[in-house]
Structures are given as C-alpha cells and as structure tokens.
C-alpha cells in the first residue's frame, strides 16, 4: 500500500508529532490529508465563494456532508454534488453506482429524504469501443443504484470530448427535503456520545481517497474501487430516516472510510474506536485495513447512550449489522485500538489541519488571431447539429426510474431544467451546467458562463435560481497552467454567484484527471443550481404559427463554441455579460407568469441553430430571417452558431408583448421567425434546409451506437 503524501507533508507530520508515526498512522494521515478529503490545494480559493444569504441554513462549513436552504413553510432543501471519476475509469458500473450511493448517504446524513438525483456524464469519443463500454456501464450503474433505492434521476448532462478518453467524468447531484428544525449536523459538540456504526466493513475500496487524489497509474487499481450493494443502500436510507430523531449527528462513510469519518465527526474533540467491535464482511481482516476501508453502505451515528438500543433495533429488523464501536472523548486525540492496544493515536488538530498548498500559476494562452468565418451553411448545420452533444439522451434517461416518487413534474428531455414537486406544494427546478470547451479557452469567463447558463435554464420553466453547489474538475494542480485555469474558474464562479445573489452551500474538487499520456482533461467546473418556480410553471409546447422571438444580443464570439471546436476556428471566448443574463431571464419568467409564451429555450450549446432545432424535433418546421437577429455581425454563421450568453428564444402568439416587455426591462428582443407545419424544414432567409436526416439522427444516434455496442 503506497502512501501518497509529499515528503514535505511527511516532514510536517514528524515535526508536529515530535515522533515518527507508525505504519497504520501513516495510512490514516494519508487518507485524512488526501486531496480528496482535505481540499488542501483548493481550500484557500473556495473561501472566496459567496456563502451568505438569509435563506442559508447550512453552508460550506467544514465537515458538513451537505448544504441546506430554507424554502419556506418550515421546509429546507438539501443539495450536494460529487463525482466518482477515478473509480469509474477502472470499473464503470461499480464506480458510477457507488457514486449514487455516496451522495444519497450525504443527503440522509442531514436527516433529509432524497427526492431527486441528477447525473452529469462526460466520456471520450464514441468511435472508440472502450468509451462505448464505459458509457454503457456508467449508465447501467447509475440506473441499478438509483432505481433500486427509489430516488428518481430527473435530469443531467451527457457530453463528449476526446480529453475524457481515459478519464470519464461521472458527476452525481442529489436533492433532499427535510423539516427545517429536524436537520442533523455531521459533527458533534460534546463528549460522551457513543459512536454507532451500521453496515459491514470489507476489503474493497482500500485507500480509495488517496487513489482519487493521484493520477491513474494504469496498473492494477481495482482493489481501490468500492463495490455497490444497492439493497443495503436502500436499508441504510430507510432506517437512517426512521432513526434520525434519535441521534445527535450523522456521518456518511465515504472517502477515507472510518479514518476520515471518525476524525471529522469529532469537530475538534477526540474519539476512541475499538476495531474488534466493527462488524466485518470477511474474517481475519487486517485491523489497519479496517480503518481505511471504503466499503459502501455504512453510516456512523453519534448517539446518546440511552438511545443506542433503539437505534440498533431499527437495523436489526432488517437484519442489518449495527454496533457501538467507540465514543467521543474530551481529550482531542483520535484513537483506534485493537484489543486494548493503541494502533493509532493522533491529535485531532493535526489531522484536521493539513498544510494548505498554493501552487504556481501560469497563463499559457496566446491571443487569438481572428479570421473571417467562411463555411458553407449547410455543412455547418449538419456537422454541428449531428454532434453527439446535441442528440436526444433518451437512451440514457429511459434507463432511469424517473417517475418514482410521483413528483417529477418536468421530466428528463422535456425542458432545459427538471422540475420536482415538494411537500409544501412548491415546485423546485434543478439544473447542472458545465462548459469544458469554453473553460479551455478562458477559465474566468467560463466560470461566469456556467453560473449564468444554469440561471437561464431555471428561468425557462419559470424558476429563479436560489442556491448552488459547485464541482471543480481539473488535471494536476501542480501544473501551473492547470492551476491557473482553476483559480480563474473559481474567480468567475464567485463573481457570478455574487451577482445573482446565489449562495454556494457546498462543493467538491477533483484533481488529477488526466489521460494516460499525462494530458489533462479540459477544465470542467460544474454548477448545480436549484430554484423555486416563482408563480406559473412552463411546460414546453410547440404549435403551428407561433412566432419565434429572440431575447438578448447575439455576439460574434465563437471561442469555445461547438462550431469552433468542430471546425477549429480560432476565436475569442465570449464575454459573459451577467446583466444581460439576469434581465433576459426576468423577461422569460415574467412572460411565463403572464401566460404569454408556450416554449422557452436558452441559447447555449450549438447556438441559435441548436435552439431552433429543438423546435424541429417536436415535428414542426421553422422559418427565420437572420437579418432580424439583433447582433454585432452580419455573418450568418456567426449569428446562428455563436454561443454568447444572455439569450433565449421563446415561442409566442404575442411577439410584440415580449419585445415591449424586454425594452421595459432594459434589454433587446426581436421577432426572428415563425413555426410552421413543414416537418423537418428549417427555412433560413427563404432557403429551405431539409433536416430529416438530422432529426432522425437526433432520435436514433445513441440507440444505435450504444444498442449495438
């Protein structure tokens, strides 16, 4: 078992302890100080996020498993995002499945009932067989776990880039709901509480946190991957919610296993754990392995002695192991004992305070020399609109039980956001957005851009963003150009969330995402945003003769767009003009509340062309005039494929109302065309383009590639 600590960290430990740690202690420190668990390369910058807002109940405080916001009527929404990138690269089924299990346990550790999942998947080129295998098993793993525990997967993302060839990104977000006064902490505030562990500990996932904090070695790393047991996960879910009232704190066992969970739950106090009391899945497990095993479906509860019996009885009804393994102590030392002998005895404050790292930053981007874009329109339309990023993801989401809970109001594929109903009758919209191509061009604009896009996506169903969590996925932070983009992206996210007044209540960082030649993935920060439908909900509907109105200015900034990626067009990344995003979103929300529109789509991936295409797949035709697009360019290609921010298209019977409404808000809008009954025909400036093949490709592409893969 290799230790992943840097020499400088090992010296620091020796200095602080005044002695050489024993081998088991090194393994505990390796887990607790891993990048995965300690955020040592990111924490300084994460502090820059806006976390203050009157509705935040639980924000990014250290060692809380998830954040929570007040949604009124005594209810709180709990939200969390995580990834399982490294395990999924080795064993996609179990890697993805345990990702779902892990995030669900984060939600229930707040005492909240999980009500929705989202999965954001990025894999390499599907022309490579291995990527087909990865994707197929990632989706099957998410389905196997999510379906079995009865939590609907209501939305997500599925996109493709060659930089994910060896290192797929498997991100999962979850939403939970809980009575505001029943939220559980993940940390304790007094000694004497018993530590109760539910679940069996086995030999899977040994050193997983450390494994996730380095590059994939290409060697046999299967032992660091956890195995999923969704049935056990369902029992943990049901019983935890049943006993939440009887416990003082709940902590999920995730990365770093007991070593991390026990250390973090103490909140600076101490703990003593007797390893022989831990129920094991296999006999004769090495006690040191028990401490760092990442076997799934385990939870740690801090319980008053008088309640221990009742807590464990609830598990016994399901024949699920539950036992007291130790207790919280006043002495601030983390002790793991085996039959009376101390194996580990480390001061809590040493474990909880790893050195922080600031790595060098370096901007290696050169200024782009812009060229006049000269492409045949037909080939641009065909190539962009058949790109796998834009096809129907029905193949994936039809494998998820997205109707369970009878609360999924806007279903996967129906709109830019998913919408679920809450117990207080309100409707919650949820969306996740990332934009790796734009981030590769400009981390700062991209950081702003993904926040703005999520905000716009929520507006398309009539919701206003109210809370977000972030997930930052990058290559090796010790590489100056990677760390530069990381710092830039955080700056962008921080600035945009402050602008929209959206608190970030949690997040996750995943470094060391590289292919086997050491080339990093495109920087992939991701935002998950949730918000309440303000008044009316829009369920998209296309009808003949509706007017197409474009809200917001189009700019000729093609950098990071799908078009420039495919045709390798050098161009500036768009400047994200947050005010335009805010104002155009307000126009859309107002139009929904006034009943003026039947369909809303933000302009993002694939530009205006892709937004118009989303009307065509409803079986209609669309006719537009590019002269009517309010824009800083006459170039048709730039008008149709720019992904500059702040824009929507809406369908309406009262186009003038939308234009006037926009003006009254201080933003522009124009009527650019009309819906007609000419199925599959996109008419641009009086020329008909028959997109039947592209529409067919939209519905069949993934079925065909994955069905036979």
């Amino acid at each position: 078992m290799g230790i992943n600590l840097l020499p400088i960290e090992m010296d620091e430990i020796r200095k602080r302890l005044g002695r050489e740690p024993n081998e088991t202690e090194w393994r505990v420190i390796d887990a607790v100080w891993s990048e995965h668990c300690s955020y040592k390369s990111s924490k300084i910058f994460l502090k820059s996020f806006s976390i203050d807002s009157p509705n935040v109940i639980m924000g990014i405080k250290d060692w809380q498993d998830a954040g929570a916001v007040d949604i009124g009527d005594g209810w709180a929404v709990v939200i969390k995002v995580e990834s399982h990138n490294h395990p999924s690269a080795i064993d996609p089924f179990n890697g993805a499945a345990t990702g779902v299990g892990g995030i669900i346990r984060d939600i229930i550790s707040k005492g909240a009932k999980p009500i929705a999942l989202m999965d954001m998947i990025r894999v390499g080129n599907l022309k490579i067989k291995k990527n087909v295998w990865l994707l197929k098993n990632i989706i099957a793993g998410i389905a196997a776990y999510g379906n079995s525990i009865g939590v609907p997967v209501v939305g997500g993302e599925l996109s493709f880039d060659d930089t994910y060839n060896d290192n797929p990104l498997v991100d999962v977000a979850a939403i939970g709901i809980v009575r505001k006064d029943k939220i559980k902490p993940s940390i304790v505030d007094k000694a004497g509480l018993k530590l109760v562990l539910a679940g069996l500990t086995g030999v899977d996932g040994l050193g997983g946190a450390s494994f996730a904090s380095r590059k994939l070695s290409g060697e046999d790393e299967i032992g660091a991957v956890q195995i999923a047991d969704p049935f056990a996960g369902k029992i943990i879910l049901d019983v935890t919610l049943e006993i939440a009232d009887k416990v003082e704190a709940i902590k999920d066992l995730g990365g770093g296993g007991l070593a991390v969970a026990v250390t973090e739950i103490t909140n600076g106090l101490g703990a003593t754990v007797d390893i022989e009391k831990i129920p094991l899945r296999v006999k004769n497990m090495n006690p040191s392995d028990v401490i760092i095993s990442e076997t799934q479906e385990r939870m740690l509860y801090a319980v008053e002695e008088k309640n221990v019996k009742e807590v464990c009885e609830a598990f016994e009804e399901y024949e699920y192991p539950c036992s007291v393994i130790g207790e919280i102590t006043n002495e601030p030392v983390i002790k793991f004992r085996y039959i009376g002998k101390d194996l580990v005895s480390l001061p809590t404050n040493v474990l909880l305070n790893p050195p922080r790292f600031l790595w060098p930053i370096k901007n290696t981007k050169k200024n782009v020399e812009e060229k006049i874009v000269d492409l045949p329109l037909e080939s641009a339309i065909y190539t962009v609109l058949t790109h796998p990023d834009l096809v129907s993801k029905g193949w994936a989401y039809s494998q998820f039980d997205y109707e369970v809970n009878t609360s999924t109001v806007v279903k996967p594929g129906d709109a830019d956001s998913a919408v679920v109903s809450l117990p207080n009758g309100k409707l919650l919209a949820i969306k996740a957005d990332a934009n790796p191509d734009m981030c590769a061009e400009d981390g700062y604009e991209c950081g702003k851009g993904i926040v703005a896009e999520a905000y716009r996506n929520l507006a398309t169903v009539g919701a206003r963003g109210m809370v977000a969590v972030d997930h930052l996925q990058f290559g090796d932070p010790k590489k100056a150009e990677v760390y530069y983009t990381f710092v830039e992206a955080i700056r962008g996210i921080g600035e945009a969330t402050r602008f929209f007044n959206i608190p970030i209540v949690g997040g996750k960082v995943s470094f060391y995402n590289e292919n086997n030649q050491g080339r990093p993935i495109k920087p992939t920060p991701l935002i998950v945003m949730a918000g309440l439908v303000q008044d009316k909900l829009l369920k998209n509907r296309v009808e003949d003769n509706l007017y197409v109105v474009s809200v917001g200015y189009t700019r000729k900034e093609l950098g990071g767009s799908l078009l420039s990626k495919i045709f390798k067009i050098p161009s500036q990344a768009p400047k994200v003009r947050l005010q335009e995003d805010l104002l155009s979103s307000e126009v859309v929300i107002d139009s929904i509340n006034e009943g003026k529109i039947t369909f809303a789509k933000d302009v993002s991936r694939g530009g205006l062309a892709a937004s118009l295409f989303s009307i065509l797949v409803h079986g209609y035709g669309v006719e537009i005039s590019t002269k009517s697009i309010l824009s800083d360019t006459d170039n048709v290609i730039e008008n149709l494929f720019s992904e500059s921010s702040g824009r929507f298209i809406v369908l309406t019977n009262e186009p003038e109302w939308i234009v006037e409404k926009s003006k009254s808000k201080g933003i522009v809008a124009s009527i650019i065309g009309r819906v007609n009954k000419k199925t599959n025909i996109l008419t641009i400036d009086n020329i008909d383009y028959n997109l039947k093949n592209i529409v067919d490709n939209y519905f069949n592409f993934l079925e065909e590639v994955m069905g036979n893969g």
Partner: protein
Amino acid sequence: MIAIIKFPGTTCETDVYKALIEAGVPTVIVKYKDFDPDRYNGVILPGGFSFGDYLRAGSIAASTETMKKVKQMAEDGKIVIGICNGFQILVESGLLKGALLPNLKLRFISKWVYLKVIRADTILTKGLDKKIIRMPIAHAEGRYYVDDIDYAKTHMVLQYCDENGNISEDVNPNGSLLNIASIANEEGNVIGMMPHPERASFKLTSIDGTVDGLILLRRLGEWA
C-alpha cells in the same frame, strides 16, 4: 381497508398510498413482517426491488411467510394486486401463471405507454372494455411469457398498443408475449400489471394531464 405491503427494497409504497388516498380508497402501508391478512379486504404489492431483486426479480419476497398469507387471501376471494415488482412476486409465488423475463433490449425501460383493456371482468377494469388508457412502465424484467398461449389469450387484462389501440410489435416495449402488460386469474381478483397506475393518478405529474391510473384504482373503493 387495503394493505400496501412494504418488503425491504420496496420503493413505490408511498406513491401507491398517495394514489389510493386520491382515489378515496382507505389504505395503510404495512411492513411485511407485521402483515395480518384478516384485517384487510385486499392487498397491493407495490413496485420496487424487494430484497434487492437479488437472485431473480421478486423471487425472495415470493418465498416469505407474508406471501403464504397473501395466497390465502386470494383463495378467499379477496383482492390481490401486484404492480411491477409486485407482479413479479405474484408470478414467482405461483399466484399467477407465467414468468417475467428480462426485457428484450436487456435494459431497464422507463416510458409512458398506451394500453388496451382486454378484460373488463376484473376488479380494476370493470366497465372499461376496449378502452385505451395511458400509464408509465419502469422495469428491467417485464417480458411476460407463458408456455400456454390459450391461457395467455384468455387471461390477459391489458395489452401494449398505440394511441389508436392497434396492437403490434412496434409498440411492444419489452418483447412480451402478445404485448401483454397485465394478466389476472380467472376470477379477476388476482391481478398483476407491469404499468404503474399510481404514477398516472396525479394531473401535475402526468405526461399529458390524464389520470387513467386513478380510474382503475377508484374501483377498489367499493371493496375496501
């Protein structure tokens, strides 16, 4: 009173409960070990993954003491309904003939489907002869098969169809024999169905505003 049985791994008990309340049917969720058949006029086995569907969908639940009691209820002429995993449990325990095999595409399928009512003599479908209704399915093992085609023809309650009621292989989501989505025993008091009526019982979450599931569930009112 209708009992909704929760096995470990059952996921749809609350949805069925909410739908029955919406339909005005008195009901209660009962943990499988606590189930006392004498207290109920009928029982629903809801969907989910009982005992993780380990071994085979529904097979472990089928061998519980609880299912012996359910069998007795069926013989006494009380109502026994299995939805999705509940249907799988009913065939695994022999209350209904046949088997539910893995879908032809070998993967989980979540989808709204059209269904044609073939038998109007069961508790749930009384008076709905030839009616076309809409409900969602969500399963990995829903391909109904029985080696007795006459039994299948005479006992099928619902068939997958298109919106006009045409029954063809194109609209068969899982490869079921004769597009069968639901069958019942001869008496019509034991019914198994892959579609989820409880998920087609609320206007807000319905795909098109229809609540055909509720129409079926309401019929339990007179028995409960």
